[in-house]
Protein backbone atom coordinates (compact mmCIF):
# COMPACT_ATOMS: atom_id res chain seq x y z
CA UNK A 1 0.00 0.00 0.00
CA UNK A 2 2.69 2.46 1.04
CA UNK A 3 4.78 1.52 -1.97
CA UNK A 4 2.07 2.95 -4.20
CA UNK A 5 3.44 6.46 -3.72
CA UNK A 6 5.24 7.13 -6.99
CA UNK A 7 5.83 10.84 -6.43
CA UNK A 8 9.52 11.70 -6.49
CA UNK A 9 10.75 8.25 -7.42
CA UNK A 10 13.10 7.27 -10.20
CA UNK A 11 11.63 5.30 -13.09
CA UNK A 12 14.39 3.26 -14.74
CA UNK A 13 14.58 3.73 -18.49
CA UNK A 14 16.73 4.82 -21.39
CA UNK A 15 14.73 7.56 -23.09
CA UNK A 16 16.19 10.77 -24.47
CA UNK A 17 15.06 12.53 -21.29
CA UNK A 18 16.88 9.96 -19.17
CA UNK A 19 20.08 10.66 -21.08
CA UNK A 20 19.98 14.47 -20.88
CA UNK A 21 22.43 16.24 -18.61
CA UNK A 22 20.83 16.64 -15.16
CA UNK A 23 21.78 20.31 -15.05
CA UNK A 24 19.76 21.11 -18.13
CA UNK A 25 16.82 19.11 -16.76
CA UNK A 26 16.86 20.98 -13.47
CA UNK A 27 17.06 24.36 -15.18
CA UNK A 28 14.36 23.39 -17.65
CA UNK A 29 12.01 22.30 -14.88
CA UNK A 30 12.60 25.52 -12.96
CA UNK A 31 12.02 27.60 -16.09
CA UNK A 32 8.86 25.66 -16.91
CA UNK A 33 7.44 26.27 -13.43
CA UNK A 34 8.13 29.99 -13.69
CA UNK A 35 6.50 30.07 -17.13
CA UNK A 36 3.42 28.35 -15.70
CA UNK A 37 2.88 31.36 -13.49
CA UNK A 38 3.56 33.87 -16.26
CA UNK A 39 0.82 32.36 -18.40
CA UNK A 40 -2.60 33.93 -17.90
CA UNK A 41 -4.58 33.07 -21.01
CA UNK A 42 -6.05 29.88 -22.42
CA UNK A 43 -3.76 29.79 -25.41
CA UNK A 44 -0.61 29.97 -23.31
CA UNK A 45 -1.97 27.26 -21.10
CA UNK A 46 -2.61 25.07 -24.09
CA UNK A 47 1.01 25.63 -25.16
CA UNK A 48 2.30 24.60 -21.74
CA UNK A 49 0.08 21.56 -21.79
CA UNK A 50 1.30 20.46 -25.21
CA UNK A 51 4.92 21.05 -24.20
CA UNK A 52 4.49 18.83 -21.15
CA UNK A 53 2.58 16.19 -23.14
CA UNK A 54 5.53 15.94 -25.53
CA UNK A 55 7.88 15.67 -22.56
CA UNK A 56 5.79 12.86 -21.05
CA UNK A 57 5.73 11.02 -24.38
CA UNK A 58 9.50 11.38 -24.77
CA UNK A 59 10.17 10.14 -21.25
CA UNK A 60 8.45 6.80 -21.99
CA UNK A 61 7.14 6.69 -18.43
CA UNK A 62 3.63 5.17 -18.52
CA UNK A 63 0.92 7.81 -18.02
CA UNK A 64 -0.84 5.71 -15.39
CA UNK A 65 2.36 5.68 -13.35
CA UNK A 66 2.60 9.47 -13.52
CA UNK A 67 -1.05 10.00 -12.65
CA UNK A 68 -0.73 7.73 -9.64
CA UNK A 69 1.62 10.34 -8.17
CA UNK A 70 -1.15 12.94 -8.45
CA UNK A 71 -3.49 10.90 -6.27
CA UNK A 72 -1.51 11.79 -3.18
CA UNK A 73 -2.00 15.53 -3.60
CA UNK A 74 -5.53 15.36 -5.01
CA UNK A 75 -6.90 17.00 -1.85
CA UNK A 76 -4.53 19.96 -2.16
CA UNK A 77 -5.64 20.53 -5.74
CA UNK A 78 -9.30 20.26 -4.79
CA UNK A 79 -8.82 22.70 -1.91
CA UNK A 80 -7.10 25.25 -4.15
CA UNK A 81 -9.81 24.88 -6.76
CA UNK A 82 -12.70 25.41 -4.33
CA UNK A 83 -10.96 28.32 -2.59
CA UNK A 84 -10.32 30.14 -5.86
CA UNK A 85 -13.81 29.40 -7.10
CA UNK A 86 -15.47 31.69 -4.56
CA UNK A 87 -12.83 34.39 -4.26
CA UNK A 88 -13.29 36.64 -7.28
CA UNK A 89 -15.77 39.26 -8.40
CA UNK A 90 -17.29 39.20 -11.84
CA UNK A 91 -20.37 38.03 -13.64
CA UNK A 92 -22.28 35.77 -11.29
CA UNK A 93 -22.81 32.25 -12.63
CA UNK A 94 -24.16 30.35 -9.62
CA UNK A 95 -25.30 31.50 -6.22
CA UNK A 96 -25.20 29.11 -3.26
CA UNK A 97 -26.48 30.71 -0.05
CA UNK A 98 -24.01 33.60 0.54
CA UNK A 99 -21.34 32.27 -1.79
CA UNK A 100 -21.18 33.13 -5.43
CA UNK A 101 -19.32 31.57 -8.31
CA UNK A 102 -18.35 34.11 -10.95
CA UNK A 103 -16.93 33.63 -14.42
CA UNK A 104 -13.64 35.14 -13.21
CA UNK A 105 -13.61 32.84 -10.20
CA UNK A 106 -14.20 29.77 -12.33
CA UNK A 107 -11.42 30.76 -14.70
CA UNK A 108 -8.95 31.44 -11.92
CA UNK A 109 -9.87 28.21 -10.16
CA UNK A 110 -9.34 26.20 -13.33
CA UNK A 111 -6.04 27.97 -13.97
CA UNK A 112 -4.76 27.42 -10.44
CA UNK A 113 -5.69 23.73 -10.40
CA UNK A 114 -4.24 23.31 -13.89
CA UNK A 115 -1.02 25.03 -12.84
CA UNK A 116 -0.66 22.78 -9.84
CA UNK A 117 -1.24 19.63 -11.88
CA UNK A 118 1.24 20.68 -14.61
CA UNK A 119 3.75 21.77 -11.97
CA UNK A 120 3.62 18.44 -10.21
CA UNK A 121 3.77 16.40 -13.40
CA UNK A 122 6.70 18.43 -14.74
CA UNK A 123 8.70 18.05 -11.56
CA UNK A 124 7.83 14.34 -11.40
CA UNK A 125 9.18 13.97 -14.92
CA UNK A 126 12.45 15.38 -13.60
CA UNK A 127 12.66 12.83 -10.79
CA UNK A 128 11.31 9.97 -12.90
CA UNK A 129 14.06 10.41 -15.47
CA UNK A 130 16.97 11.41 -13.20
CA UNK A 131 18.56 9.20 -10.59
CA UNK A 132 18.91 10.84 -7.17
CA UNK A 133 22.68 10.80 -7.55
CA UNK A 134 22.56 12.61 -10.89
CA UNK A 135 20.06 15.04 -9.49
CA UNK A 136 22.18 16.07 -6.55
CA UNK A 137 25.38 16.11 -8.60
CA UNK A 138 23.63 18.44 -11.01
CA UNK A 139 22.40 20.64 -8.20
CA UNK A 140 25.83 20.78 -6.65
CA UNK A 141 27.38 21.89 -9.90
CA UNK A 142 24.68 24.49 -10.49
CA UNK A 143 25.13 25.89 -6.99
CA UNK A 144 28.92 25.93 -7.16
CA UNK A 145 29.19 29.62 -8.07
CA UNK A 146 27.18 30.39 -4.94
CA UNK A 147 29.79 28.84 -2.67
CA UNK A 148 31.92 31.92 -3.32
CA UNK A 149 29.42 33.96 -1.34
CA UNK A 150 29.32 31.43 1.48
CA UNK A 151 26.51 29.09 0.42
CA UNK A 152 27.50 25.56 1.51
CA UNK A 153 26.59 24.06 -1.87
CA UNK A 154 28.30 20.72 -1.35
CA UNK A 155 26.73 20.22 2.07
CA UNK A 156 23.27 21.08 0.77
CA UNK A 157 23.68 18.65 -2.13
CA UNK A 158 24.97 15.92 0.17
CA UNK A 159 22.05 16.37 2.55
CA UNK A 160 19.64 16.20 -0.34
CA UNK A 161 21.17 13.07 -1.77
CA UNK A 162 21.10 11.37 1.63
CA UNK A 163 17.47 12.39 2.12
CA UNK A 164 16.50 11.09 -1.32
CA UNK A 165 18.53 7.94 -0.83
CA UNK A 166 16.66 7.11 2.37
CA UNK A 167 13.11 7.71 1.18
CA UNK A 168 12.74 4.11 -0.10
CA UNK A 169 14.59 2.76 2.94
CA UNK A 170 12.24 4.53 5.32
CA UNK A 171 9.22 3.46 3.27
CA UNK A 172 10.39 -0.14 3.53
CA UNK A 173 10.95 0.31 7.23
CA UNK A 174 7.46 1.77 7.67
CA UNK A 175 5.98 -1.11 5.72
CA UNK A 176 7.81 -3.63 7.88
CA UNK A 177 6.80 -1.99 11.15
CA UNK A 178 3.18 -1.66 10.03
CA UNK A 179 3.07 -5.33 9.15
CA UNK A 180 4.68 -6.32 12.42
CA UNK A 181 2.11 -4.34 14.39
CA UNK A 182 -0.72 -5.66 12.23
CA UNK A 183 0.52 -9.15 13.03
CA UNK A 184 0.00 -8.18 16.66
CA UNK A 185 -3.60 -7.32 15.89
CA UNK A 186 -3.25 -3.56 15.30
CA UNK A 187 -5.94 -2.17 13.05
CA UNK A 188 -5.10 0.97 11.08
CA UNK A 189 -8.13 1.06 8.87
CA UNK A 190 -11.18 1.36 11.09
CA UNK A 191 -12.36 3.58 13.93
CA UNK A 192 -12.71 7.36 14.23
CA UNK A 193 -9.91 9.86 13.67
CA UNK A 194 -8.84 9.93 17.32
CA UNK A 195 -8.59 6.15 17.41
CA UNK A 196 -6.63 6.09 14.17
CA UNK A 197 -4.23 8.78 15.38
CA UNK A 198 -3.61 6.72 18.50
CA UNK A 199 -2.89 3.70 16.34
CA UNK A 200 -0.08 5.62 14.68
CA UNK A 201 2.02 5.59 17.86
CA UNK A 202 3.08 1.95 17.46
CA UNK A 203 4.35 2.87 14.00
CA UNK A 204 5.91 6.25 14.62
CA UNK A 205 7.95 5.41 17.72
CA UNK A 206 9.80 2.46 16.14
CA UNK A 207 10.16 4.42 12.89
CA UNK A 208 11.88 7.36 14.60
CA UNK A 209 14.15 5.03 16.52
CA UNK A 210 15.07 3.29 13.26
CA UNK A 211 15.71 6.60 11.54
CA UNK A 212 18.11 7.69 14.27
CA UNK A 213 19.86 4.34 14.21
CA UNK A 214 20.25 4.47 10.43
CA UNK A 215 21.54 8.06 10.58
CA UNK A 216 24.11 7.14 13.19
CA UNK A 217 25.33 4.13 11.22
CA UNK A 218 25.48 6.23 8.08
CA UNK A 219 27.57 8.95 9.74
CA UNK A 220 29.97 6.36 11.09
CA UNK A 221 30.29 4.63 7.73
CA UNK A 222 30.99 7.95 6.03
CA UNK A 223 33.68 8.84 8.54
CA UNK A 224 35.20 5.39 8.21
CA UNK A 225 35.59 6.12 4.51
CA UNK A 226 37.34 9.43 5.26
CA UNK A 227 34.51 11.75 4.29
CA UNK A 228 35.51 15.29 5.24
CA UNK A 229 33.21 17.56 3.29
CA UNK A 230 33.40 18.92 -0.23
CA UNK A 231 36.90 20.35 -0.27
CA UNK A 232 39.07 18.76 -2.93
CA UNK A 233 36.45 16.11 -3.70
CA UNK A 234 36.50 14.82 -7.25
CA UNK A 235 33.79 13.02 -9.17
CA UNK A 236 34.07 9.71 -10.99
CA UNK A 237 31.80 10.79 -13.83
CA UNK A 238 32.32 14.35 -15.01
CA UNK A 239 29.23 15.99 -16.41
CA UNK A 240 29.64 17.41 -19.90
CA UNK A 241 27.09 19.14 -22.12
CA UNK A 242 26.48 17.27 -25.36
CA UNK A 243 24.70 18.19 -28.55
CA UNK A 244 21.33 17.01 -27.27
CA UNK A 245 21.70 19.28 -24.25
CA UNK A 246 22.37 22.32 -26.40
CA UNK A 247 19.38 21.47 -28.61
CA UNK A 248 17.19 21.15 -25.53
CA UNK A 249 18.39 24.52 -24.29
CA UNK A 250 17.52 26.16 -27.61
CA UNK A 251 14.05 24.59 -27.70
CA UNK A 252 13.44 25.71 -24.15
CA UNK A 253 14.54 29.29 -24.88
CA UNK A 254 12.24 29.45 -27.91
CA UNK A 255 9.34 28.13 -25.82
CA UNK A 256 10.01 30.68 -23.06
CA UNK A 257 10.28 33.50 -25.55
CA UNK A 258 6.97 32.44 -27.11
CA UNK A 259 5.17 32.33 -23.76
CA UNK A 260 6.52 35.74 -22.71
CA UNK A 261 5.58 37.30 -26.04
CA UNK A 262 2.06 35.92 -25.63
CA UNK A 263 1.81 37.46 -22.18
CA UNK A 264 3.03 40.85 -23.41
CA UNK A 265 0.81 40.87 -26.50
CA UNK A 266 -2.48 39.72 -25.01
Amino acid at each position, binding site marked *: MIRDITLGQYYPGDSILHRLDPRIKILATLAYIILLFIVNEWIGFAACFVFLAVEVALSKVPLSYILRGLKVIFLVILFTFVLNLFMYDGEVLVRIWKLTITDQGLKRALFMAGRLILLIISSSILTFTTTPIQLTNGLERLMKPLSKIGVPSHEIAMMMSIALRFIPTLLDETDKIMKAQ*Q*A*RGADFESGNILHRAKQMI*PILVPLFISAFRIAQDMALAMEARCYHGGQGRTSMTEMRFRRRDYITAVILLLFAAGIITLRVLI
Partner: protein
Amino acid sequence: MSIEVRNITHIYNKGLPQESVALKDVSFTVEDGEFLGIIGHTGSGKSTLLQHLDGLLKPDEGQILIGDVDITAPKVSLLAVRRQIGLVFQYPEYQLFDETVAADVAFGPRNLGLGQEEIDERVRESLSMVGLDYEKIKDKSPFDFSGGQKRRIAMAGVLAMRPRVLILDEPTAGLDPRAHRDVLNMIRAYHKSQADSIIILVSHNMNDIAEYADRVLVMDKGQVRMHGTPKEVFARSAELREIGLDIPDLADLAEKLLARGLHVPKDAFTIPEMAQAIAMQLRGGKTDPAAEGGEDA
Protein backbone atom coordinates in the same frame (compact mmCIF):
# COMPACT_ATOMS: atom_id res chain seq x y z
CA MET B 1 -5.91 -27.42 13.05
CA SER B 2 -3.79 -27.82 9.95
CA ILE B 3 -2.55 -25.38 7.35
CA GLU B 4 -3.09 -26.00 3.70
CA VAL B 5 -1.42 -23.86 1.07
CA ARG B 6 -2.87 -24.39 -2.38
CA ASN B 7 -1.07 -23.18 -5.49
CA ILE B 8 -0.32 -19.66 -4.34
CA THR B 9 1.41 -17.20 -6.64
CA HIS B 10 2.49 -13.70 -5.67
CA ILE B 11 3.86 -11.03 -7.97
CA TYR B 12 5.38 -7.79 -6.64
CA ASN B 13 4.88 -4.52 -8.55
CA LYS B 14 2.52 -6.13 -11.01
CA GLY B 15 2.52 -4.24 -14.29
CA LEU B 16 5.57 -2.13 -13.49
CA PRO B 17 9.08 -2.53 -14.89
CA GLN B 18 10.28 -3.74 -11.47
CA GLU B 19 7.73 -6.60 -11.59
CA SER B 20 9.05 -9.75 -9.97
CA VAL B 21 7.51 -13.12 -9.21
CA ALA B 22 8.06 -13.80 -5.51
CA LEU B 23 6.05 -17.02 -5.23
CA LYS B 24 5.11 -19.36 -8.01
CA ASP B 25 2.54 -22.11 -7.59
CA VAL B 26 3.47 -22.95 -4.00
CA SER B 27 1.56 -25.80 -2.35
CA PHE B 28 2.15 -27.72 0.88
CA THR B 29 0.37 -28.73 4.04
CA VAL B 30 1.36 -28.51 7.68
CA GLU B 31 -0.20 -31.03 10.05
CA ASP B 32 -1.45 -30.49 13.57
CA GLY B 33 1.38 -30.28 16.08
CA GLU B 34 4.07 -30.15 13.42
CA PHE B 35 7.36 -28.24 13.69
CA LEU B 36 8.13 -27.11 10.15
CA GLY B 37 11.50 -25.68 9.18
CA ILE B 38 11.75 -23.49 6.07
CA ILE B 39 15.11 -23.00 4.38
CA GLY B 40 16.13 -21.20 1.22
CA HIS B 41 18.72 -18.62 0.28
CA THR B 42 18.03 -14.87 0.45
CA GLY B 43 15.33 -13.85 -2.00
CA SER B 44 13.87 -17.33 -2.39
CA GLY B 45 10.44 -16.13 -1.24
CA LYS B 46 10.46 -17.29 2.39
CA SER B 47 9.47 -13.97 3.93
CA THR B 48 6.76 -13.41 1.33
CA LEU B 49 5.38 -16.85 2.09
CA LEU B 50 5.27 -16.14 5.84
CA GLN B 51 3.40 -12.90 5.29
CA HIS B 52 0.78 -14.78 3.30
CA LEU B 53 0.27 -17.22 6.14
CA ASP B 54 -0.65 -14.33 8.43
CA GLY B 55 -2.91 -12.64 5.90
CA LEU B 56 -0.60 -9.61 5.59
CA LEU B 57 -0.24 -10.23 1.89
CA LYS B 58 -2.88 -11.62 -0.43
CA PRO B 59 -1.81 -14.02 -3.14
CA ASP B 60 -2.49 -13.16 -6.76
CA GLU B 61 -3.63 -16.74 -7.22
CA GLY B 62 -4.34 -19.68 -4.94
CA GLN B 63 -5.76 -20.24 -1.47
CA ILE B 64 -4.54 -20.72 2.07
CA LEU B 65 -6.72 -22.71 4.46
CA ILE B 66 -6.07 -22.45 8.18
CA GLY B 67 -8.22 -25.10 9.81
CA ASP B 68 -11.29 -24.76 7.60
CA VAL B 69 -11.07 -20.98 7.15
CA ASP B 70 -9.91 -19.67 3.79
CA ILE B 71 -7.84 -16.62 4.80
CA THR B 72 -7.46 -15.52 1.20
CA ALA B 73 -11.23 -15.04 0.83
CA PRO B 74 -12.19 -11.40 0.28
CA LYS B 75 -14.27 -10.86 3.41
CA VAL B 76 -12.43 -12.91 5.99
CA SER B 77 -11.90 -11.28 9.41
CA LEU B 78 -8.16 -10.88 9.75
CA LEU B 79 -8.45 -10.32 13.48
CA ALA B 80 -9.87 -13.82 13.72
CA VAL B 81 -6.89 -15.09 11.73
CA ARG B 82 -4.48 -13.32 14.06
CA ARG B 83 -6.12 -14.87 17.09
CA GLN B 84 -4.78 -18.14 15.72
CA ILE B 85 -1.49 -17.12 14.20
CA GLY B 86 1.47 -15.32 15.74
CA LEU B 87 4.16 -13.99 13.45
CA VAL B 88 7.56 -12.97 14.82
CA PHE B 89 9.34 -10.90 12.20
CA GLN B 90 13.07 -10.68 11.66
CA TYR B 91 14.64 -8.41 14.28
CA PRO B 92 11.37 -8.09 16.20
CA GLU B 93 13.04 -5.79 18.74
CA TYR B 94 12.58 -2.93 16.26
CA GLN B 95 8.81 -2.95 16.75
CA LEU B 96 8.88 -2.16 20.48
CA PHE B 97 7.21 1.17 21.13
CA ASP B 98 5.43 1.49 24.44
CA GLU B 99 6.58 3.19 27.63
CA THR B 100 6.87 0.06 29.73
CA VAL B 101 7.69 -3.55 29.03
CA ALA B 102 4.35 -4.69 30.42
CA ALA B 103 2.39 -2.26 28.23
CA ASP B 104 4.30 -3.32 25.14
CA VAL B 105 3.74 -7.01 25.70
CA ALA B 106 0.06 -6.27 26.39
CA PHE B 107 -0.39 -4.59 22.98
CA GLY B 108 -1.28 -7.79 21.15
CA PRO B 109 -3.70 -9.24 23.74
CA ARG B 110 -5.39 -5.83 24.05
CA ASN B 111 -5.95 -5.73 20.29
CA LEU B 112 -7.58 -9.13 20.59
CA GLY B 113 -10.08 -7.49 22.96
CA LEU B 114 -9.28 -9.50 26.08
CA GLY B 115 -10.19 -8.37 29.61
CA GLN B 116 -7.64 -6.61 31.82
CA GLU B 117 -7.21 -9.56 34.16
CA GLU B 118 -6.60 -11.99 31.34
CA ILE B 119 -4.12 -9.55 29.76
CA ASP B 120 -2.13 -9.18 33.00
CA GLU B 121 -2.03 -12.93 33.42
CA ARG B 122 -0.79 -13.46 29.88
CA VAL B 123 1.86 -10.73 30.10
CA ARG B 124 3.20 -12.28 33.29
CA GLU B 125 3.22 -15.76 31.79
CA SER B 126 4.80 -14.83 28.45
CA LEU B 127 7.59 -12.83 30.07
CA SER B 128 8.46 -15.79 32.27
CA MET B 129 8.24 -18.04 29.21
CA VAL B 130 11.03 -16.03 27.55
CA GLY B 131 13.07 -16.17 30.76
CA LEU B 132 12.53 -12.66 32.08
CA ASP B 133 11.50 -11.62 35.58
CA TYR B 134 8.11 -9.91 35.33
CA GLU B 135 8.26 -8.09 38.68
CA LYS B 136 11.70 -6.69 37.97
CA ILE B 137 11.16 -5.37 34.49
CA LYS B 138 7.45 -4.67 34.04
CA ASP B 139 7.71 -0.91 34.66
CA LYS B 140 10.99 -0.32 32.86
CA SER B 141 11.26 1.12 29.37
CA PRO B 142 11.77 -1.60 26.76
CA PHE B 143 14.50 0.57 25.23
CA ASP B 144 16.72 0.24 28.29
CA PHE B 145 17.60 -3.38 27.58
CA SER B 146 20.30 -5.10 25.58
CA GLY B 147 19.61 -6.37 22.06
CA GLY B 148 19.05 -9.97 23.12
CA GLN B 149 16.72 -8.97 25.94
CA LYS B 150 14.76 -6.65 23.68
CA ARG B 151 14.26 -9.56 21.32
CA ARG B 152 12.87 -11.66 24.16
CA ILE B 153 10.47 -8.89 25.13
CA ALA B 154 9.31 -8.57 21.53
CA MET B 155 8.80 -12.32 21.30
CA ALA B 156 6.84 -12.28 24.55
CA GLY B 157 4.57 -9.73 22.87
CA VAL B 158 3.66 -12.31 20.24
CA LEU B 159 3.51 -15.27 22.64
CA ALA B 160 1.05 -13.31 24.80
CA MET B 161 -1.47 -13.69 21.98
CA ARG B 162 -1.25 -17.47 22.57
CA PRO B 163 -1.18 -18.34 18.89
CA ARG B 164 -2.01 -21.88 17.83
CA VAL B 165 0.40 -21.36 14.96
CA LEU B 166 3.68 -19.61 15.78
CA ILE B 167 5.69 -18.42 12.81
CA LEU B 168 9.23 -17.12 13.28
CA ASP B 169 11.42 -15.48 10.64
CA GLU B 170 15.06 -16.05 11.59
CA PRO B 171 14.51 -15.45 15.29
CA THR B 172 18.16 -16.08 16.12
CA ALA B 173 19.76 -13.70 13.60
CA GLY B 174 22.53 -11.66 15.19
CA LEU B 175 22.33 -13.32 18.61
CA ASP B 176 25.31 -14.67 20.54
CA PRO B 177 25.57 -18.48 20.85
CA ARG B 178 23.96 -18.62 24.26
CA ALA B 179 21.01 -16.39 23.39
CA HIS B 180 20.68 -18.39 20.18
CA ARG B 181 20.24 -21.62 22.14
CA ASP B 182 17.91 -19.96 24.65
CA VAL B 183 15.60 -18.64 21.93
CA LEU B 184 15.36 -22.03 20.22
CA ASN B 185 14.67 -23.80 23.49
CA MET B 186 12.00 -21.23 24.26
CA ILE B 187 10.33 -22.00 20.97
CA ARG B 188 10.46 -25.71 21.69
CA ALA B 189 9.04 -25.16 25.17
CA TYR B 190 6.15 -23.14 23.72
CA HIS B 191 5.50 -25.88 21.19
CA LYS B 192 5.25 -28.45 23.96
CA SER B 193 3.18 -26.29 26.30
CA GLN B 194 0.41 -25.63 23.75
CA ALA B 195 -1.28 -28.84 22.69
CA ASP B 196 -1.28 -29.41 18.93
CA SER B 197 0.36 -26.06 18.20
CA ILE B 198 2.23 -25.61 14.93
CA ILE B 199 5.65 -23.97 14.73
CA ILE B 200 7.02 -22.64 11.45
CA LEU B 201 10.66 -21.61 11.69
CA VAL B 202 12.68 -19.94 8.97
CA SER B 203 16.40 -20.26 9.50
CA HIS B 204 19.68 -20.20 7.64
CA ASN B 205 21.18 -22.49 10.22
CA MET B 206 20.90 -26.07 8.94
CA ASN B 207 21.99 -27.47 12.30
CA ASP B 208 19.01 -25.89 14.04
CA ILE B 209 16.60 -27.08 11.37
CA ALA B 210 17.97 -30.64 11.58
CA GLU B 211 17.72 -30.65 15.35
CA TYR B 212 14.31 -29.01 15.86
CA ALA B 213 12.13 -29.52 12.80
CA ASP B 214 9.85 -32.49 12.10
CA ARG B 215 9.65 -31.59 8.46
CA VAL B 216 11.61 -29.26 6.19
CA LEU B 217 10.44 -27.13 3.29
CA VAL B 218 13.11 -26.00 0.83
CA MET B 219 12.35 -22.86 -1.17
CA ASP B 220 14.18 -21.87 -4.33
CA LYS B 221 13.31 -19.01 -6.69
CA GLY B 222 9.81 -18.71 -5.28
CA GLN B 223 9.03 -22.40 -5.63
CA VAL B 224 8.99 -25.39 -3.33
CA ARG B 225 12.04 -27.43 -4.19
CA MET B 226 11.82 -30.16 -1.53
CA HIS B 227 9.46 -31.03 1.29
CA GLY B 228 10.10 -33.89 3.69
CA THR B 229 11.67 -34.99 6.94
CA PRO B 230 15.15 -33.58 7.73
CA LYS B 231 16.52 -37.05 6.98
CA GLU B 232 15.01 -37.07 3.49
CA VAL B 233 15.90 -33.48 2.67
CA PHE B 234 19.47 -33.45 3.96
CA ALA B 235 20.25 -36.67 2.12
CA ARG B 236 20.11 -34.65 -1.09
CA SER B 237 23.26 -32.70 -0.27
CA ALA B 238 24.41 -32.09 -3.84
CA GLU B 239 21.08 -30.54 -4.81
CA LEU B 240 21.03 -28.36 -1.70
CA ARG B 241 24.51 -27.04 -2.40
CA GLU B 242 23.53 -26.31 -5.96
CA ILE B 243 20.81 -23.88 -4.80
CA GLY B 244 23.14 -22.11 -2.39
CA LEU B 245 22.24 -24.03 0.76
CA ASP B 246 24.16 -26.52 2.84
CA ILE B 247 23.64 -29.57 4.99
CA PRO B 248 24.04 -29.72 8.79
CA ASP B 249 27.62 -29.93 10.10
CA LEU B 250 27.04 -33.45 11.41
CA ALA B 251 25.64 -34.66 8.09
CA ASP B 252 28.67 -33.11 6.43
CA LEU B 253 30.97 -34.87 8.87
CA ALA B 254 29.17 -38.16 8.27
CA GLU B 255 29.55 -37.71 4.53
CA LYS B 256 33.29 -37.18 4.86
CA LEU B 257 33.74 -40.09 7.27
CA LEU B 258 31.76 -42.38 4.98
CA ALA B 259 33.98 -41.37 2.08
CA ARG B 260 36.94 -42.54 4.15
CA GLY B 261 35.32 -45.85 4.87
CA LEU B 262 34.03 -45.25 8.40
CA HIS B 263 30.46 -46.51 8.72
CA VAL B 264 28.55 -43.79 10.54
CA PRO B 265 24.87 -42.89 10.12
CA LYS B 266 24.06 -40.02 7.80
CA ASP B 267 21.13 -38.84 9.89
CA ALA B 268 22.59 -38.49 13.36
CA PHE B 269 21.62 -34.87 13.96
CA THR B 270 22.73 -34.54 17.57
CA ILE B 271 26.31 -34.52 18.78
CA PRO B 272 25.93 -37.35 21.37
CA GLU B 273 24.33 -39.60 18.76
CA MET B 274 27.13 -39.00 16.31
CA ALA B 275 29.85 -39.29 18.96
CA GLN B 276 28.51 -42.66 19.99
CA ALA B 277 28.39 -43.90 16.43
CA ILE B 278 31.98 -42.85 15.80
CA ALA B 279 33.14 -44.40 19.06
CA MET B 280 31.46 -47.67 18.16
CA GLN B 281 33.19 -47.67 14.81
CA LEU B 282 36.61 -46.90 16.23
CA ARG B 283 36.27 -49.57 18.89
CA GLY B 284 36.16 -52.07 16.06
CA GLY B 285 33.39 -54.15 14.60
CA LYS B 286 32.71 -53.71 10.90
CA THR B 287 28.97 -53.26 11.17
CA ASP B 288 27.17 -51.40 13.84
CA PRO B 289 23.55 -52.20 14.74
CA ALA B 290 22.88 -48.61 15.91
CA ALA B 291 24.07 -47.10 12.65
CA GLU B 292 21.81 -48.44 9.97
CA GLY B 293 22.10 -45.37 7.77
CA GLY B 294 25.76 -46.06 7.06
CA GLU B 295 25.30 -49.54 5.66
CA ASP B 296 24.86 -48.67 2.03
CA ALA B 297 27.84 -46.35 1.70
